């Protein structure tokens, strides 16, 4: 290190050490004081803005928290959550411990893992102390406490759940190919009519994991990070399967879809016959909007399907922490969760436990109508646990090495 650099680093360290400590974080156990502090605050919620129905739902949340708690909510529509992570990190590096640009962020998986690992979130657990957290099904849904195998530890508040679901036009595909063997056979008989999203897009990576889980009899290897030998031995059948189907995919497997939305658009344009999504209500919503035919139905793989949850988190330097907590708590209220589950609004499954709800709320959930393409809880079947996060990274890298160049 050159001498001037040393001086700089000492100065920088000094500057950081004397910077004023952030005011004490709001304590969710003392909810009334949180409400008092939140009143009049403006919460900038960075949330993916690619879906009109979700944006409209968030706008409704904004109206509600304004009239109930006097909190002004502004959605910052983003295209990539990782940009928000980078933003918070940039503020951390610049020594901005207060007045951060991000108050609340819609997050899960690797982005949450990064935020948590780098200490970019509120330092003490808060979400489990929110008044409405008690209503959630944390006892029975491990995805609410373990986000892609990263322990949540009260640093993010659950918002909704997701499960890998396929959908297809039953007018064209008479029987859903709901096993890997059936899917492979269908793809080979119907060249150019199936594709998936290119990893590292999350739905693409999930599809790889879904196939891998179906081809592996002993799932215990997925609990820990793989070493090279285990990875090679375990994934060999996956690559063999992909090598067999790729020549028969859409565009002969030379290009892939970008994300779930493009998959939906491709199905809408009849470019493909089977698409996949993380939202079990997506196909019904799309039918409602007239994007895809009435004859579209959903299915899951007969050996279970990968499920997870999505959350909201508060960065360490958020400007309106109390306001952000109030919003997170409202998102967990039966009213907000009910509206979110409504397929004419969004159709995102709730995180609440049915038996913890009041009879009126239970009745309201019972009254929700689901569309023809939505599977019942029984039909959705078993939820497969996400493999350790290192598996995803290794799968992405190997996929890119094999098919990405």
């Amino acid at each position, binding site marked *: 290190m050159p001498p001037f*650099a040393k001086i*700089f*680093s000492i100065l*920088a360290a000094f500057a*950081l050490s004397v910077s004023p400590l952030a005011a004490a974080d709001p304590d969710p156990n003392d909810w009334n004081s949180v409400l008092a502090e939140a009143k009049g605050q403006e919460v*900038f919620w*960075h949330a*993916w*803005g*690619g*879906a*009109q129905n979700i944006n*409209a739902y968030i706008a409704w949340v904004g109206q509600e928290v304004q009239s109930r708690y006097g909190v002004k909510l502004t959605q*910052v*529509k983003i*295209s*990539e*959550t*990782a*940009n928000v992570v*980078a*933003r918070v*990190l*940039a503020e*951390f*590096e*610049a*020594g901005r411990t207060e007045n951060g*640009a*991000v108050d609340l962020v819609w997050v899960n*998986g*690797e*982005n949450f*893992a*990064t935020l948590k690992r*780098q200490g970019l979130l509120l330092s003490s657990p808060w979400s489990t102390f929110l008044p409405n957290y008690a209503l959630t099904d944390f006892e029975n849904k491990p995805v609410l406490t373990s986000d892609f195998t990263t322990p949540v530890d009260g640093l993010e508040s659950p918002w909704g759940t997701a499960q890998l679901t396929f959908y297809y036009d039953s007018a064209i595909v008479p029987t859903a190919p709901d096993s890997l063997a059936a899917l492979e056979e269908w793809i080979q008989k119907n*060249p150019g009519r199936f594709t998936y999203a*290119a990893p*590292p897009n999350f739905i693409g990576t999930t599809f790889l994991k879904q196939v891998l889980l179906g081809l592996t009899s002993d799932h215990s290897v997925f609990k820990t990070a793989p070493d090279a030998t285990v990875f090679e031995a375990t994934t060999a059948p996956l690559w063999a399967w992909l090598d067999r189907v790729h020549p028969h995919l*859409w*565009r*002969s497997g*030379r*290009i*892939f879809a*970008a994300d779930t*939305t493009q998959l*939906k658009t491709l199905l*809408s*344009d*009849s*470019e493909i016959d089977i698409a996949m999504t993380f939202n079990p209500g997506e196909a019904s919503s799309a039918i409602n909007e*007239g*994007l895809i*035919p009435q004859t579209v139905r959903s299915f899951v793989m007969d050996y279970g399907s990968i499920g997870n949850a999505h959350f909201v988190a508060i960065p360490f330097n958020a400007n309106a922490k109390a306001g952000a907590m109030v919003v997170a708590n409202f998102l967990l209220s039966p009213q907000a969760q009910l509206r979110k589950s409504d397929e004419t609004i969004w159709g995102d499954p709730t995180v609440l436990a049915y038996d913890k709800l009041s009879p009126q709320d239970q009745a309201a959930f019972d009254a929700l109508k689901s569309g023809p393409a939505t599977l019942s809880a029984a039909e959705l079947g078993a939820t497969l646990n996400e493999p350790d996060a290192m598996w995803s*990274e290794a799968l992405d890298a190997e996929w*890119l*090495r094999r098919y*990405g*160049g």
Partner: protein
Amino acid sequence: MKAKTSRLAIIPALVLALLILPIGAATLSLLGTAFDWKFGWWAHSLEPFETSLGAFQTVLNVPGFWTSVGLSFWIGLFTALISLTIVMLFIATFLSSRGFFWVWVLMKPVLAVPHAAAAFGLLFLIAPSGFLIRLVSPELSGFLRPPDWLIVNDPAGLSLALGLILKEIPFLFFVTMAALPQTDFRRPRIAANMGYGQIWSWFISVFPGVYLQIRLPVFAVIAFATSTIDVALILGPVTPPTLSVRILQWMNDPDLSMRTTAAAGAIIQVGVTLLAVLTWWAAEYVVMHLGRMMALRGWRFKRDKILRLLSVGLLGASVLIVSVGTALLALWSVAGVWRFPEALPQVWTLKSWSDQATNLWETGWRATIIGLGAATLSLALVLASLENEYRNNKRATRLAWWTIYIPLLVPQIALVGGLSVLFIRFSIDGTLWAVILVHMIFTYPYIYLTLSDPWNAFDTRYLAVARSLGKSVNRAFWSIRLPILLRPVLAAFALGFAVSIAQYLPTLLIGAGRQPTLTTEAIALASGGNRRVIGTYALVQTLLPLIVFALANLVPKLLWSNRRGLQVRSVE
């Protein structure tokens, strides 16, 4: 008088500060990230990332990395070559004809269409499920479902290059038109009388002089095409994508250690752009020597009818494609159900417009304020710079000249990424002024680029007459030079406004999400791939600059309706 001059003399310093400070800051922070220097305010206070050259090794080992590099390189050169050729052939063919003025009128709106909007329009037109195939389906083609053809996102990047060429043609046309008044039109006529073909006459007698003046814009085209992100995301190859898209993916990776990879990638991107420009430079010599050789041998190239027809066809096609593409955007914005193979929507609805009305209004209004602010301030600076050059009889030095154009030549992702660290450090991000300031880094060069030639071509004897009649140098500026040059001044202003409207990365990173504009909102909404929303936003994004271009055209016409000498002639 003396005081005025010295006050103007600080302008170059001001401009250089506006440009050099951010460029320097961006460079330092980029290098700092790539090499992981542990000092200064950009130091990582987090877990150690890779050290020194590790990031570059990672980048080089990424599968398909060289394919990405090759793609960026060839798309940059191919785009510049094709668009320049088409524009030059067309101008050589048609300069003297009356129809030329109308082509120019048609071309101007195309200039206002943002790159991303043009790219979406092209996508809706030529994709296998797009308008062209719908038109002939199922009756002629027999397609009940879209054919499984690899048209857009092709691995070689041809559709990407096409999308870029469509937008670079009007840009090069625009700058060539600005350069033309200084050329002597009698020359090609003399050459033609000596038996040279029409196109060849132009190439040997006018082109060399014109090319010298539009050379920097051509370099800017190469730089833009090698590093474009939005167009590449829409039309470009996927596995692997171009280098710029890769850098964006690394920046967007949840694994923060990829940020060093992204920084190293951005430095390589600068290198690729530089290499492409240098290759072009070398090719200039080859072309020059070949041309000279052919001219010296007296080759006439008399039979160029096919080439002339081709030039008209290609240029016409480019205008037509963008126009139809824009019409398709409009169609999608009012489409309800519109499934393949229907050529027109089955259900029409204004839902997309009514859903977005408030949002469009707010973000459109902010984009307009930022655009007007950035264009006005940049224009004032450019006028002051040019006037200073004239009064002190000093043209911009080579170094200053290049500094002005660095923002156009350096990939935006490298420049703005570094800049945002600086803004965050001093807590000036997230304000309207910060966004306007950053936009000025890009609007200033474009305005200077388009205005400097007409400005310097001005016959300064008018000013001398004014001075001899006892008018001050300021009076001469305000009542002689500015009114006469009002048309190019307003045209440059309109271009600056269009440039500002289209800015995505600077607005996103410096605005900190607090200053959403039409473009940042459009890209966030487009990430969901909803064509109706894309159509709505892309259309408004096109309309705003279009209105300003139209006003820039109209104002001088109305203002000087009683001054015949200031009316449009066939060539501006």
